């Protein structure tokens, strides 16, 4: 009951006219930058960090949360109509969504993505409101050994996005892991792969790599085959109303996606990528029409989109209750919190009740705004994509420049951005998937650090990974994920 009272108090904060304006500005801005390929919420919030010196903390966080949720909605529009994921979590949406749009089912894809985002966003926010303390208690039991086992599980599920060729997918993955290893080693303070460049000591910024691959690389690729690919932005030919069959195939996927997305997002090191992959994997396995996957299956849009939004709410759980950022966006939001001199941590809910509950309440409000903004007005957002290609991509590259140069004013970062862009171009040309690079970059160093932490704590005893029950459970799950196709095949063969 205390929670409900707090939430009511939060609505009191979020419904003040000024905070409603912040929320509205956030969701509009978020949707717009989500729609534009190459601009993600992390980048946008990073660019907006300086307003923390001019606006009060509650307003700023309501704005940021609006951007965060809005970008998830907008990202799906681009993934479906342009096949250019705005951020790594909507890569999966583009797999099936873009195929649907190519088959003239863009409207249905957009609708299932938007409604699914709303459903899962609301479920996720409910989870954030009520389940947070329980999830946190569970997540707190995780030590480095468990985190490492969790990474193993995550790496196993990455195979879902390796693309046409496992060899090329793995090459991308290991390239990403290597990029992630660049910089000072946290455990020993030794510089690795910095080639004597001081700027590389802090590592390669994942935002630079993501923007390089997705914005610069994509621009290079599209320019190189420009005359052959003028029709990249797909028109919405069908109605936005989903058919009865669409609803039947979507609603379970939404809830399954939310059920996968929220807990994984809430788990430290969860993030948004893993649950979207997992959801896709699950929907593919459960679908009555698995043959449609890869050619535009609606569950393949509904599930991952829902998982994406639910995980966005989940990521806020460790961020708000423990002060632990589990995604780039959360990390940037936390640094904004710290610039107000507010210490994130378990006390935050007590000491900054208005801020936290106002933020949570604004998420409910923002979600409704987003559904209204996105579904009927999708035509308006698509207009952003109708900007002539020469101007759109010109603008994107200038924005990409601001995102890197404006933060560090370091030519090294610009060179890195363009170099990664060149690599992204080659990867697109020779059909290497780009998503595993980002996954490897995020998960690789995490896995390494957690493994080494676990070993230091256990004084070099590798068996901790299997003697700790939680860790063992995660490893068994990972083994099952690897073996289940074989077991399933063996089982069906044995039965017949």
């Amino acid at each position, binding site marked *: 009951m205390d929670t409900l009272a707090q939430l009511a108090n939060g609505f009191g904060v979020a419904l003040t006219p000024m905070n409603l304006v912040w929320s509205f500005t956030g969701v509009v801005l978020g949707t717009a930058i989500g729609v534009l390929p190459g601009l993600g919420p992390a980048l946008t919030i990073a660019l907006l*960090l*300086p307003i923390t*010196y001019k606006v009060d903390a509650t307003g700023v966080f309501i704005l940021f949360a609006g951007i965060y949720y809005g970008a998830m909605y907008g990202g799906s529009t681009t993934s479906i109509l342009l096949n250019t994921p705005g951020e790594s979590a909507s890569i999966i949406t583009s797999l099936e969504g873009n195929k649907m749009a190519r088959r003239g089912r863009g409207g249905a894809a957009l609708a299932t993505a938007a409604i699914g985002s709303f459903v899962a966003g609301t479920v996720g926010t409910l989870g954030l409101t009520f389940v947070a303390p329980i999830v946190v208690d569970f997540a*707190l*039991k*995780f*030590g*480095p050994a468990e985190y490492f086992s969790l990474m193993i599980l995550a790496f196993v599920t990455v195979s879902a996005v390796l693309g046409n060729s496992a060899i090329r997918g793995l090459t991308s993955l290991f390239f990403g892991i290597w990029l992630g290893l660049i910089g*000072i*080693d*946290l*455990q*020993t*303070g030794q*510089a690795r792969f910095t080639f004597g460049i*001081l*700027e590389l*000591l*802090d590592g390669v910024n994942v935002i630079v790599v993501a923007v390089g691959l997705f914005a610069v690389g994509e621009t290079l690729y599209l320019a190189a085959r420009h005359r052959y690919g003028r029709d990249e932005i797909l028109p919405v030919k069908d109605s936005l109303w989903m058919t009865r069959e669409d609803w039947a195939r979507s609603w379970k996927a939404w809830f399954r996606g939310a059920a996968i997305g929220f807990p994984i997002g809430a788990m*430290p090191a969860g993030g948004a990528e893993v649950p979207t992959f997992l959801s896709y994997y699950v929907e593919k396995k459960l679908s009555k029409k698995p043959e449609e996957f890869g050619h535009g299956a609606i569950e393949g849009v509904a599930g991952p989109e829902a998982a994406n939004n639910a995980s966005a709410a989940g990521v806020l759980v460790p961020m708000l209750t*423990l*002060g*632990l950022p589990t995604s780039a966006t959360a990390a940037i939001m*936390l*640094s*904004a919190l*710290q*610039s107000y*001199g507010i*210490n*994130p*941590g*378990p*006390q935050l809910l007590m*000491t900054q009740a208005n801020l936290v509950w106002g933020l949570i309440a604004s998420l409910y409000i923002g979600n409704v705004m987003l559904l209204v903004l996105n579904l009927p007005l999708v035509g308006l957002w698509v207009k952003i994509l109708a900007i002539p290609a020469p101007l759109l991509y010109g603008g994107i590259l200038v924005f990409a420049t601001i995102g890197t140069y404006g*933060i*560090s*004013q*370091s030519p090294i970062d610009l060179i890195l951005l363009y170099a990664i862009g060149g690599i992204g171009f080659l990867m697109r040309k020779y059909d290497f998937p780009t998503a595993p690079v980002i996954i490897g970059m995020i998960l690789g160093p995490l896995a390494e*650090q957690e493994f080494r*932490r676990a070993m*230091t*704590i256990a*004084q070099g005893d590798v068996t901790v990974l299997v003697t700790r029950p939680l860790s063992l459970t995660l490893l068994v799950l990972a083994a099952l994920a690897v073996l289940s196709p074989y077991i399933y095949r063996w089982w069906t063969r044995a039965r017949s």
Partner: protein
Amino acid sequence: MWTRRDMLMASLAGSTALVAGAGLSGRVLAQAIDTLQIFVPAAPGGGWDQTGRTIEAVLKANKQINAAQVTNVGGAGGAVGLPQFVNQWKGRPNSIMVAGMVMVGALIANKSPVNLSQTLPLARLTGEFEVVVVPGPSPHKDMKSLVEQLKKDVGSVSWAGGSAGGTDHILVGMICQSQGLDPKKAAYVAFAGGGPAQAALLGNQVTCGVSGWGEFSEQVKAGKLRALAISSDKRVPGLDVPTLKEQGIDVELFNWRGVFAPPGVTDAEREKLTKMVEAMANSQAWKDELQKRDWMGILLTGKAYEDYIKSENVRIEAILKNLGLA
């Protein structure tokens, strides 16, 4: 490490600044300082950035300056920013850099070609003590029992803290050293900062944790972590935490922050900036900020501060060597 060429360049830059300054001097001297340039060799949001922004706010509130512009050049504990401050900001009037102990360590560990002695120290402003904490359920009630376990088997005590070679790691090294143990053998588990280290402590995954008091204070107040010792020379008023010295560990450490002027500015310019910072540090607005942010005011200026920087360099280099990092 001043080479003849550097000296020449510095004096050249200094005289250029003088010439350039002459034309402006009328306007500049009329009002204390029009626009203060604040160089922060860290990304926005961190401790140095907060210090820089607070300096800006207090100076403005005191009407000591009209405006300020903050430039952030983050990376490698300041090792990326410092060369820029030393080279590109050389001789610039009305400019200060915020830095601190972390930079001294980062420069040594990264074998940086530039160091803080190439800047002109103005004043040490704030400090934060380090605290040793254990998880709530831990059997350790004081440093004595922790040290006993440490002496029995160094590797069995796992320490959570910030990145290797940082303030937290240095304190662990000093504690081990004071007990006659090899600091290299301490099972130090590095996290990306006090926040992430907290999670391992709250989950009772490590024996103990080391970080700035501000990082753990909330949890200690909530009773989820127990503070065993603080790294100050004497007890901090209002804090019921014994010092390391009280418990027979002759170690004292605090993470200080201060301001520096770029090389090549005139003595008069340096004097003016020092006066400005001193006046600020003694103002009520600054004291209110210290209170609000849990910072400790430890003002030190002039020759004493310059000597302090030199001694810190020597002390930290020795510890990092013993940790195998320098």
